[in-house]
């Protein structure tokens, strides 16, 4: 505890850096996976390919990816761009499957009913498909968010600061409290972001609340 109190400033800086690294990939995952996921759900042929490709991509270990990206794309090795790109790739790979599941889960009866009362194609997507896919999309996004927050720590291995720096620094200097702080802080950030997403979901999708269901 004393270690935490003595190093509050450093923790705060690293926390901010951590957030800056993990938020963009979460947003990118949602936005990029949306069109791919919709296509995957609508076209079974393309879908099977996309699903295999994304699960293979997700299986690629993080550290080699963090090293391969700058070498292949010519980014400087120790750059935030590397970490953000790598985590976005993971996020999209993970999110595509959930997005496809989300859109496949929309009851075709309800879609038919909406078409029958006169929803146009665009209106059908925005006012029916998207909100009804919402709960499964949210579940997928929560998984992406939590694993992204935890994966950002690996950036410390290639020298990109974040809460992971507490882990590498603590290990090298043999400060157990620092490592424990790093673990705890990462978990807290993950839990808070997860909670925020859940709250946003409740706000945007009031019909999914427990007490609404009969």
């Amino acid at each position, binding site marked *: 505890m004393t270690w935490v109190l003595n190093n509050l400033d450093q923790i705060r800086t690293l926390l901010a850096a951590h957030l800056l690294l993990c938020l963009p990939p979460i947003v990118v995952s949602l936005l990029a996976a949306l069109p791919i996921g919709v296509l995957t759900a609508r076209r079974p042929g393309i879908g099977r390919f996309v699903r295999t490709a994304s699960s293979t991509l997700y299986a690629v270990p993080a550290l080699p990816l963090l090293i391969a990206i700058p070498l292949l794309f010519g980014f400087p090795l120790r750059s935030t761009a590397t970490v953000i790109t790598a985590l976005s790739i993971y996020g999209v790979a993970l999110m595509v499957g959930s997005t496809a599941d989300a859109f496949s889960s929309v009851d075709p*009866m*309800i879609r*038919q*009913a*909406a*078409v*029958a*009362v*006169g*929803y*146009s194609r665009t*209106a059908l997507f925005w006012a*029916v498909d998207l*909100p*009804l896919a*919402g709960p499964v999309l949210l579940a997928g996004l929560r998984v992406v968010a939590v694993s992204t927050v935890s994966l950002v720590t690996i950036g410390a291995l290639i020298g990109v600061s974040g809460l992971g720096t507490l882990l590498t620094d603590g290990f090298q200097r043999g400060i157990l409290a620092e490592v424990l702080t790093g673990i705890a802080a990462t978990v807290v950030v993950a839990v808070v972001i997860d909670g925020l997403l859940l709250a946003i979901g409740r706000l945007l*999708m*009031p*019909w999914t609340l427990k007490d*609404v*269901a*009969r």
Partner: protein
Amino acid sequence: MIEFESVSKIYPSGAIAVEEFSLLIPSHSVCTLVGSSGCGKTTLLRMVNRMVTPSSGRVLIDSEDIAAADAVELRRSIGYVLQSGGLLPHRTILDNVITVPVLKGRKGSATRAHGLELLELVGLDPAIATRYPAQLSGGQQQRVGVARALAADPNILLMDEPFGAVDPIIRRELQTELTRLQTELGKTIVFVTHDIDEAFRLGDQVVVLRSGGHIAQQGTPEEITSAPADSFVSDFVGADLGGRRLHAITESDRTVIVDADGKPLGVLR
């Protein structure tokens, strides 16, 4: 007025849903299409709002070929009620009712007020307006479905087994309610059902279909019960009423259905 002009629907697989079907449904009347599953009745209904496009033949509304109309506009101008309501689970009851006016761009408080009136019209407490469909009973959802279909004040109502998923007592209630509404509103209603009882109770004109959308018999309930065209129709009519031979007796101003023992079963409207 709705006219089917020798329409057929043949799917790419070669399955024939409807073959050379012709029918005229006069304005302000209720026409029930009745038959077992797979007879093409729902396909016929869905041709009216272009959810299904005929492989050949034409469907006309007030003498105009609907193929020329914009499909989305056409659907918004026709009320549609389907089994289990087809309500949007993520919209409140009121938002569900005023779906079509809102789609047409009328969002104001007048529309909302009209929506509440419609809830009352179909026999619901306007207090449920802020709830979600999952919080309502099956019968209530069905009423909301009817209110939604009426919201844009369409001339035509298409009803696809709307009361198929509710229990018999509620179904009876909803049928009575629909009859009352129809006396008040005088819409042109096409009503699809597999329940011959329901078809007779609601239809001014009843069309009994066999598979492939072939008309086995069409006429008023009285005509069909008193003189079934063939054994298919008498089986269909008889089977659903418990296998008893039935006939209609006209007494002064009303028609009474009696069974083989002369026991009265009910009064036709």
